[in-house]
């Protein structure tokens, strides 16, 4: 028995833990291969419950009600290659081509087997190109019939890793697998060390996964089986909230519960606190809703790209959940809101993208947020730096809102609240960055493009989204997520 086990034994007696928990505890205390040598808190070990202390919940108005409605009709759908970082699209269709739901629209130049499928049947309306003829979107006009291509059905519980891998590539599910390091579309030739799924989203106004996955747990379980085959039958790591109940009874998962503020729901944070990535390791992650889509697609042989979107934000006329499909028109989710004073964000307010009101839902987004635009100049005494700021949510204590009750929600607009400056204030990123990594030093090493320093400072473990709160809190208004993305891209180029 290890020393830890012994301690648990003693403590276990003291705390009058019943036999079953005691058994679990002693099992949990047996060091698993490659277990993180972080300081193990005995209480955490006993319940496999990890408390994330750093971070912050930004309390915004416009939370969705529990209602789930079908989204309004959408005449066109778009699949947007820039959503899938790290792939170069090669078209398989032309404008006017007839497609079915599940027909390939384009594939990845880096991995030609990786197909991107049409979410609906109809014909290709247009191919939108940007600078240097880069493909921005393939727009499909729906014929309303939703005829689907019959794909191979896979027995996820018994299929081999190779079969699953091939099926995921051809069934259009692979683009939803993200890899760490680099935080981009996974390389299908890699063998991941482990696969991690976050069972909850902690971002501001984020969807509640219990609602998103309601009635889809069988599909979710099938998705888990498929992923598990890719890591030699090992369990999939699933991070959950202590109070969540939908995930109990799942097979082939290893549950770890995470308590604490955002970004506790970021899969990168969960990985860091359980099985941190080392240089030379690769792991894959997938969004919980995409895991359910994966299970459904492989088992039914019909390409499934369901989205239960949390339509949120202080400017949304009717914040609620809406069922739709990948790449739908945003106007079907915003109650047709089209006003220059309202910003439509595909995604959450921290990592989402500013979309046109008549644009399309991003391929990896599960939420939309409508916020007021803040493009009017603000007078110093009433609305900006000299104002009392009683209505300003701030992580800095220089506004008095930190003294207000935690139940109050705030309206925030998109004003930068100041201009970009050099780094001056210190100690601002650390309280919202739950990694054993020095965020400012890492960012500076990226700005200096010092690959060696980036590696040493832990860039392998992070994704841009993990820095979103740092960027939010930054007094100097530095574009932290862009810098991290640039660092990851440079690192990938350097490693070849």
């Amino acid at each position: 028995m290890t020393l830890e086990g012994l301690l648990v034994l003693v403590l276990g007696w003291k705390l009058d833990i019943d036999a079953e928990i005691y058994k679990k505890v002693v099992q949990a205390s047996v060091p698993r291969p490659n277990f993180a040598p972080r300081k193990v808190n005995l209480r955490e070990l006993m319940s496999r419950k990890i408390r994330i202390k750093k971070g912050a919940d930004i309390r915004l108005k416009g939370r969705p009600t529990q209602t789930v409605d079908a989204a309004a009709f959408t005449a066109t759908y778009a699949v947007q290659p820039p959503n899938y970082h790290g792939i170069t699209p090669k078209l398989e269709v032309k404008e006017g081509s007839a497609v079915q739901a599940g027909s390939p629209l384009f594939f990845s130049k880096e991995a030609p087997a990786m197909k991107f499928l049409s979410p609906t049947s109809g014909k290709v309306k247009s191919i939108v190109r940007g600078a240097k003829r880069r493909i921005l979107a393939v727009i499909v006009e729906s014929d309303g019939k939703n005829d689907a291509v019959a794909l191979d059905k896979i027995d996820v519980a018994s299929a081999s890793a190779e079969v699953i891998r091939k099926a995921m590539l051809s069934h259009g599910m692979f683009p939803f697998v993200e890899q760490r390091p680099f935080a981009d579309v996974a390389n299908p030739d890699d063998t991941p060390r482990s696969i991690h799924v976050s069972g909850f989203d902690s971002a501001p106004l984020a969807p509640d996964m219990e609602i998103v996955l309601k009635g889809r747990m069988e599909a979710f379980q099938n998705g888990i089986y498929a992923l598990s085959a890719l890591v030699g039958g090992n369990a999939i790591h699933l991070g959950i909230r202590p109070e969540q109940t939908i995930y109990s009874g799942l097979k082939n998962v290893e549950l770890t519960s995470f308590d604490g503020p955002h970004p506790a729901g970021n899969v990168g944070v969960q990985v860091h606190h359980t099985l941190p990535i080392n240089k030379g390791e690769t792991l894959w992650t997938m969004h919980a809703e995409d895991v359910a889509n994966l299970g459904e697609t492989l088992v039914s042989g019909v390409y499934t790209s369901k989205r239960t979107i949390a339509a949120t934000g202080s400017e949304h006329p009717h914040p609620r959940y809406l069922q739709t499909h990948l790449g739908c028109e945003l106007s079907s989710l915003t109650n047709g809101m089209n006003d220059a004073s309202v910003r439509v964000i595909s995604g959450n307010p921290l990592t989402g993208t500013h979309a046109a009101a008549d644009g399309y839902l991003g391929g990896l987004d599960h939420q939309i947020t409508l916020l007021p635009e803040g493009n009017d100049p603000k007078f110093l005494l009433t609305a900006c730096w000299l104002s009392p700021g009683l209505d300003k949510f701030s992580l800095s204590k220089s506004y008095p809102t930190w003294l207000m009750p935690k139940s109050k929600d705030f309206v925030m607009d998109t004003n930068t609240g100041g201009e970009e400056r050099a780094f001056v204030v210190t100690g601002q990123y650390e309280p919202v960055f739950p990694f054993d990594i020095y965020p400012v030093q890492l960012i500076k090493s990226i700005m200096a493009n010092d690959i060696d320093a980036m590696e040493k400072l832990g860039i392998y473990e992070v994704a841009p989204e993990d820095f979103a709160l740092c960027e939010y809190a930054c007094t100097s208004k530095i574009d932290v997520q862009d810098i991290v993305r640039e660092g990851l891209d440079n690192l990938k180029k350097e490693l070849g």
Partner: protein
Amino acid sequence: MKALHNMLDSIRPHFEEGGKLSRFWVVYDSLETFAFTPGHTTKSGVQIRDGVDLKRTMFLVIVALIPALLFGTWNQGHQYMLSIGEVSVADPLSALFLDKLLIGAVKVLPLVIVSYGVGLGIEFLFAGMRGHSINEGYLVSGMLIPLIMPVDVPLWMLALAVAFAVIIAKEVFGGTGMNILNVALTARAFLFFAYPKQLSGEIWIHEVASSKAGGLLVDGYTGATALGHLASTVGKSPTEPAVAGVMDMFAADGMFSLTNSFFGLIPGSVGETSALAILIGAVLLIWTGIGSWKVMSSFLVGGLAMGAIFNLMGLNAYMTIPAIHQVVMGGFMFGMVFMATDPVSAAQTERGKWIYGFFGGFLSIMIRVFNPAYPEGVMMAILFMNVMAPLIDHYVVQSNVSKREKRMELAMAQRATA
């Protein structure tokens, strides 16, 4: 406020590229953004941002300086009255409140104006040359500099010191956020080394020299600061009458008693004398999270620790001054709250801040007592720690790096055995 904004908008074309006044764009831009936070919106990355910016941060530091500034202004008048015997040490709050404030203001205001005028002038010049917008950093430095100056410092000397500090300590490194040394302390250090003669002796009290010449000065009044008096005792036997005379001034009823030192009714640089006024500022800085409580508290602990060690050693009269008395004298408190906490020149890592602060305080008292040539050790100690801060950070970060490397080696070993 619409009217003001319309006015600014209407004159804007003159300052834009091709306008008559385009070379003054920096001036226009800084004034406009001072009055109105521009309607810039987020683009990539986060879609919402915190309302705090550098202007608010710097402004709050200036607010925290106000008690020290007001008290310092009054105290300069008070010290003048003391020197000519208008009021007595025993009765500091006797009438003449307004007179004291006015006399002080006549001396202190020009210092503030010269500091801001010269410093901001150079900032505008560099911003114009580089095509940057004005950084707010000098708003704080410009207020700190007059507060750490002796009241009778000639204005041309002050102007020279400000110019040196802003150009050599800040702009050559790339401006706000890039400097290694604290700008305000560099100005003080410049005067200290460039004009040692002028910066010692009869400069701490308004017009001490002319009062003396006119026969107005109270008998035996020297106008030296507490630390100046104490420095004169070093190297002498504690039993010498001169030393005993100095030590009497630090007794409970002396001019530099603990109470007087704490409330600040003693000669010294404009803003440094009152520990009370400075601590009011400290409360605001800590409450708003702008000043690092880690640096402040470890600085204090460092100073008290060194003071206590000296108390135990007790080798000369200076060492017998109680540790708590040491930290309320001279520039210790001011340095602790407003200089050591400068986020740019301090240690950047949270663990580094503890080390940085502790040694800052420790060295302040050590230099003060060991080296009578530098009656004020705080300036030297903080500048030294500014230089050491990157080294401290390096080792703090390095321990994190090696932890990560060990983890990787462990993982590789496990993979090899598996």
